[in-house]
Each structure stands twice: as C-alpha cells, then as structure tokens.
C-alpha cells in the first residue's frame, strides 16, 4: 500500500506541476488550434469543379423517402427521386415535375387527372408510366399490399402517407388511383382535400421504381432507385452518401429559371458532420463546398471569410411561446395579450437570430398562401402589459418557462430566447423560472400539457396553411398526449373555419376562412409568436445556382461549380 501510494504521488505531482505551467498556454493554444484546423485541404473539395461536397448535421435514416420523416433523409432522396409536382425555386408556387402540368380539381375536388411525362426512365432502365404511379400509391395506401413494408429498423412506417392523406386502407382520402392510359392517371378522392396537389410535391411521395421494389423490397431503403437527376452510388453510414449524375434525366433540357436543367456535377457527396463548429470549420477550410445548419452567430463569420457566400432558405417555420390556455392565469386572454406586449420581440430576434430571422406577426410564415398581411405584431409596450395584468387581477405571478434543450431549425438557441424573455417578463412583474428537459422528455411532457408556458416551433411540410394552423391550433390537436396544439387553444369558431378551409377546393373560400382564423388567433393570443427563421447555408463562391427550397431539401440538379481555385 505504502509503495503504491508513493509512486502514484510522485507522478501526480509532476503532472500537476506540468499542467500548472502550461495552463494558460494550453488554453490559448487549444483555441488557436481549432481555428487553424481548417487549413487542411479536402479531397476534391475546392477543386475539380465536378464533385460537390455538402455538409449537414446528421445522417439519413432511410433512402426510401416514404419510410422517412427527417429532413436529412429527404436531402438525399431529393437527388434520387422525383415527385409528381414540385415547387419553383425559393417559393411555394407549384410547377410540373413527373406530371406535365399542375392538375385542376374535378367533380368539386373529388378527382384529379394527371398527365405524365413521356420517355422518363428509372435508374434501373425500366419505364416510368401510369402503372408505376399506381403501384407506388397502392403500396403506400394498402396495408395488405405485399410491398407495404421494408424501410429497415428505423422506418417511419409510411407515416407521411398517414399524416397527409388521412390514413391507410379505408381511412385514406385517396380512394383509388386508376390508369387511364400509359401516361394518364386519375386520382379519386373520398372527399375534397384543399391541400391535395401540394401534398403531391412532398419529398416522401417520390416515385420509386416498381421493378426494384419487386426485386427486393426489404433492402430498397438502402439501395434506392428513382428517376431523379442523380443515381445512388454508395452510402457509408454516419459518414457520407454518394450520388452520380443521371445523364438521361428528363429535366436536362427544360428551363433552368424554373429549377430544371442539369445535372451539371459529375458526383455529389452529402457528408454528415454533427458538430456545428466542426462543420463550419470544414467549410471555411475548403473541405466542403457547402454546408447547412449554421448557427446564427456563424453567419457573420462565414460572410467575413474570403471566398464564401451565404444563401438563406426562405422561411417555412414559426417559433413560438405557447401559453397553456387551460391553466391559470393563461385561461384569461388579457394575460396572454399582456405577455405579447411584455416581450421586446425585435430586440430579442436581433440578438438571437440576427439576419437569420424576422419577427413573426402571425401563426404561420408569410410565404404560405393565405397569409394575412394586415395583421401587425403586438408592439413592445410594458406599461400596457402591466395594465392588462392588473385588469386580469394578476399580481407577482410565479410561473415556469420551458425551453428546448437542443437547437431546432425554427429556434436555434432556445436557451437564450428563454433568458431574454425572463428578463422582459421580470420588468412587468412576472417571475418565470426557466425549466428544460431532455428532448424526448420535453416533447412528451409538453404533449401532455404539463407546462404552463413552453417554447416550441414548427417546420412546414407542404406549403399549405392547413399544415400550420390546423396542426398547431385546432382543438382536435389538443389531445391528452402527443398534442401538437401545445397551447391547448380551443376556439370552436376557429375550428369551424379551419375545417371549412380544409375540405374545400374553392380558393377564395379558403382565403376568407384562413384570413378570419388568423385575425381571431391574433386577438385570442394563445401564443407569443417569436420569429420566422431563414436557415442560412454557407457556400463557396465557386458554387452557383444553389436555390434553397423552403421545404428544407432541394435537388442539386441546377448547381454548378465554377473552375478550381
């Protein structure tokens, strides 16, 4: 015992002396080292002009898009698969893709007939036609279909079909998909669905090769075959996905201004670098041609670097503070309005989001059709807030403010948001304790309504108002568990308007309903809307025609890399 004590002590003392001497030096060196690490030149990163390396924060889960719900899966499947319809660059305007025109509703919204593009081939050489479209929709809808499976261990089990088309089998809004001729297909619906055509643009509904699925449905999620501008080549788990140019892509000769054309790159590598700091270091060190998931504070950093530019994804998100309308004192609209007046939102958004966000006035982002432009955000007015609180009989309120433990696209730094709100609320006599939980627990607890106030947000799927307002504020979504209406806002009038807008295809009727719903919500103030975030994407100057799509994943077909550097 004595002996071991002695040896241990000697080496320990030496270590302590050394560390003492080198303490400050080491700290400084560590920081400098991180900055310098970026100078390592990357394989094919900045030169060649034919391989495009894009960095992102996480690996894909499935490359069969119907088996995925995460944006990182869609980022890869967008290259490999095409959807029937698409969005024009940087907007929510629908354009044709595998269909040749955006269809009009027939029979009062009960059927749609789609003309399909001729001469399109899947990457395995088989033909794309009406039969292929029918095969895909049958596979998604019919749980007894022998190909209604696959997707690997983390499959979402066709979750997006369930979410967008009401359910499987008899619950599905789509009753049948019928082949009229080789290049015409007809969708028959059980009831009119306002967002139907917009749903067809969504990444999960990319059309897959029936031949490849029949050959091996269980492995299709890791050996995907579509019609997209790039063909799948290799997936190295947790590291990168490689895709190669599809020389016979149908969109090559169509106008680039509409998002067609290309593919101009020989190869695309989509690389996963989970750590934000490392990813930005890799970008500025020219190991990547582009990267997303930049935190707002990195925007000026990348901007100042020579040879780099930023693109902003159009906002398709809303971040908010939800007050639990079922809990005192938030059952009183005056209190909720007071909170809207109490927080200096322009100051908060400037500090936390900088250029990457704009103050929210509404309960959905402005790019979404039927956004009510006449609504102004509540102004910052602490005196008015105090007055409203006094009228509601609320004094020295002690409450809790929950914030997300991790960065989300709609709120990259919830902890700072919460701390700034806490200070503003203190000024009007509200003492909010900050609380957070591990992310899974957080969603679980907020979904059960355990909170009094919580920060959350939403990223849109299909560019339709229904996808924001109905999901987040319909009383039907204020369920006892897994609620998406975490404000537990229940207004029968709003419910009626939302339902009306959902089940009609009459655009002006939808507009009236959504406009009115937004006005009522603004008045009822179940949330304090915070901001619409425009996620930044860092790119080398050599990268051109990168058109960020609001749906958080875009096809890289128009992208070019000019020369080496």
């Amino acid at each position: 015992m004595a002996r071991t004590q002695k040896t241990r002590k000697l080496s320990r003392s030496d270590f302590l002396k050394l560390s003492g001497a080198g303490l400050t030096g080491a700290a400084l060196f560590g920081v400098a080292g991180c900055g310098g690490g970026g100078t390592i030149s990357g394989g094919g990163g900045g030169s060649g002009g034919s391989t495009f390396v894009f960095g992102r924060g996480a690996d894909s889960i499935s490359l069969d898009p119907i088996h995925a719900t995460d944006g990182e899966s869609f980022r890869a499947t967008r290259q490999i698969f095409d959807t029937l319809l698409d969005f024009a660059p940087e907007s929510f305007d629908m354009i044709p893709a595998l269909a040749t025109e955006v269809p009009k509703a027939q029979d009062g919204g009960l059927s749609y007939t789609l003309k399909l593009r001729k001469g399109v081939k899947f990457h395995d050489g088989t033909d794309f036609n009406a039969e292929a479209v029918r095969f895909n929709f049958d596979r998604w809808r019919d749980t007894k279909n022998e190909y209604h499976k696959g997707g690997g261990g983390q499959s979402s089990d066709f979750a997006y079909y369930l979410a967008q088309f009401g359910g499987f089998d008899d619950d599905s809004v789509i009753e049948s998909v019928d082949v009229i001729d080789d290049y015409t297909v007809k969708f028959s619906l059980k009831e009119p669905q306002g967002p139907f055509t917009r749903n067809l643009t969504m990444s999960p509904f990319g059309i897959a090769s029936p031949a490849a699925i029949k050959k091996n449905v269980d492995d299709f999620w890791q050996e995907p075959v579509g019609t997209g501008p790039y063909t799948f080549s290799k997936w190295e788990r947790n590291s990168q996905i490689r895709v190669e140019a599809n020389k016979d892509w149908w969109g090559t000769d169509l106008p680039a201004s509409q998002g067609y054309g290309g593919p101009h790159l020989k190869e695309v590598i989509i690389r996963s670098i989970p750590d934000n700091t490392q990813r930005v270091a890799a970008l500025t060190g020219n190991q990547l041609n582009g990267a997303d998931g930049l935190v707002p504070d990195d925007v000026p950093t990348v901007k100042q670097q020579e040879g780099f530019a930023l693109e902003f994804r159009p906002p398709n998100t809303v971040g908010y503070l939800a007050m639990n309308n079922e809990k005192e004192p938030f059952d009183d609209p005056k209190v909720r309005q007071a909170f809207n007046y109490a927080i200096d939102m322009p100051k908060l958004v400037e500090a936390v989001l900088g250029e990457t966000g704009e103050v929210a006035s509404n309960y959905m982002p402005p790019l979404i059709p039927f956004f009510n432009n006449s609504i102004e955000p509540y102004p910052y007015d602490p005196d008015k807030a105090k007055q409203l609180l006094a009228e509601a009989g609320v004094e020295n309120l002690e409450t809790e403010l929950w914030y997300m433990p991790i960065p989300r696209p709609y709120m990259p730094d919830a902890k700072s948001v919460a701390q700034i709100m806490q200070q503003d609320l203190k000024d009007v006599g509200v003492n909010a304790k900050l609380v957070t939980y591990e992310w899974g627990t957080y969603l679980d607890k907020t979904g059960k309504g355990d909170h009094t106030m919580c920060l959350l947000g939403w990223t849109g799927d299909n560019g339709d108002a229904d996808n924001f307002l109905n999901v987040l504020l319909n009383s039907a979504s204020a369920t006892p568990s897994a609620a998406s209406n975490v404000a537990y806002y229940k207004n029968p009038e709003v419910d009626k308007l939302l339902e009306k807008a959902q089940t009609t295809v009459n655009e002006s009727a939808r507009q009236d309903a959504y406009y009115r719903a937004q006005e009522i919500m603004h008045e009822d103030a179940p949330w304090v809307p915070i901001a619409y975030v425009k996620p930044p994407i860092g790119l080398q100057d050599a990268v051109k025609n990168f058109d960020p799509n609001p749906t958080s994943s875009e096809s890289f077909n128009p992208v070019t890399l000019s020369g080496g550097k």
Partner: protein
Amino acid sequence: MAEAQIQQDEAVSLGVETRSRRQDFLRAFFSNRLAIFGTAIMGVFILMAVFAPYVAPYSPLQQHLPQKFAGPSFAHPFGQDELGRDILSRVIYGARISLTAGLAAVALATTVGTIVGLAAGYLGRWPDSMLMRLMDVLLAFPSILLAIVIVSILGPSLANAMLAVGIVFIPQIARVVRSAVISVRERDYIEAERALGAGDAQIVLSGILPNSMAPLIVQATLTLATAILDVAALSFLGLGARAPTPEWGAMLTDAFRSGFGVFLQGQHAIIFPGVAIALAVLSVNFIGDGLRDALDPRRRG
C-alpha cells in the same frame, strides 16, 4: 514506519509536544511552494465567493443585448457573453456556485463514506464484505458516467448534480477510511481503551476516527477538486445549474452554443470561465498534495 507511528502515537497519548506537531505540519505544508500557491488562489476564490455582491462590478444577470460577445474592455475586463452579460461578474458569482456545489458534494461523500468505511473496517467479516462489494459496484462505473445516470433519473438541477457527484465519490472515501481503520483497530491503545471498558461507539469515535483523520482529510481535499470539475462538467452537459445561473461549466457551454464564430471573435467567453475552472481545480489539488506531504509521517526528518 511502524516505529515512527508508534512514537507519534505515544506522543499523542501522552499529551505532550502537540504544539510542535502542529508546527511541524505547518512548516511542512508551507515549505511546499505549490501548496502555498494553491492556498493563495483558493483564498482569492473564497473571498470572491463570500463577497461576490461587493466585488462584482455588475449584476451577473443584467443583459445588454447589443453588446453581445463584446471583447474585454476597461468597463468589462473579461468581456461580455452571448447576452451581453459581464463575464467578470459571472465568474465571481460562479465561484460561489462552484465552491458550494463542490463542498456540498464532498460533505455528502465524506459523511456517508466515513460511516461506511468505519462500519466496514471496524466490524469486519460479513458487514465488511457486503459494504465493500457495494462500493465496488459503484466504483465500477466511470465517475462522470454514473453522475450523468443519476442526474438523468433525478432530473437536471444543480442540487441533483451535487447529490449525484456526492454519491459517486462515496466509495473512494469509504475505501480510504476502511483501510485506515483496519491499520488502527488492532493498535495497543485501542486494546487499552477496550480493556478500560469502553463501548464500541466510544472506541470508534474517540479512538479510531481521530487516528484515521489524516488520510481522510487528504482524500476529501483531492475529491473536492474532482467534485468541482464534475459539477462543472454536468452543467456543461446541461444537467446541472439552471439558466440563467452563472455557473462556470454552463457559461462554457453557452459560449460554445454560439458556434464557430466564438473561436474567432469571442474567445474571452470561453477562456475566462475555463481558466476559472482550471485554476480552482488545480489549486485544490495543490492543497491536497501539500496536505498529504505534510501529514505523511515518513516525510518528517
């Protein structure tokens, strides 16, 4: 060694030369330059912690959003953080939290560890085996991992972080106390006490415990260093102090959250809390080492 120990024990039991023994200890401790350095630094931290409201130039919570990550200046010697709060003030208040958290954790570990160690060492046989196997189970996990598990179960908060870190360090204290007790319990003076009719409790409290103090003090001090570090680590991982508490580990993670740009423009937001953690841990380690050397009878000459 045994001989020296006996001489010393005789001196104690005879009640003579105690003053010179303390002088011996102080001389030995303060002849160690690193120990002096450690004591001085720790003294500064303790003063900072006690007089934080008088020493800190600003409130640690006062935000100045437009001055986000402003560098060190005359008004803000350590610069400002991601919400424009004064980092110097936060580091000063952070000393309060880190030291209290560390001390609380060590107090818990020492109390429980000493009871377990005394019981195991004095009773021997099956209570010994049972208690020490239990300690081995705790010891089998890497300390920070076990702390993370405990905090995850209890829910993240500073109190739970202290509790977790305290639990994690129980086995180390228990083992040290047990081995000291075993070396003391068969000594002649214990036999003498027993012969005089003292009960178990009296023997343990007046005979065994005081004579096992030296290794315990050393171990507790060294544990304090690790406890401060572990509490900071838990806060860094978001499992400790609640926002907006100015805790050193949490300050680090807040700075890192702001991305790559911090490494280029906001280094001060990382360096100062980081250096505070390093200095506190290092100084406690120096003190612990000094104590060990000073209390080691073999070092006397």
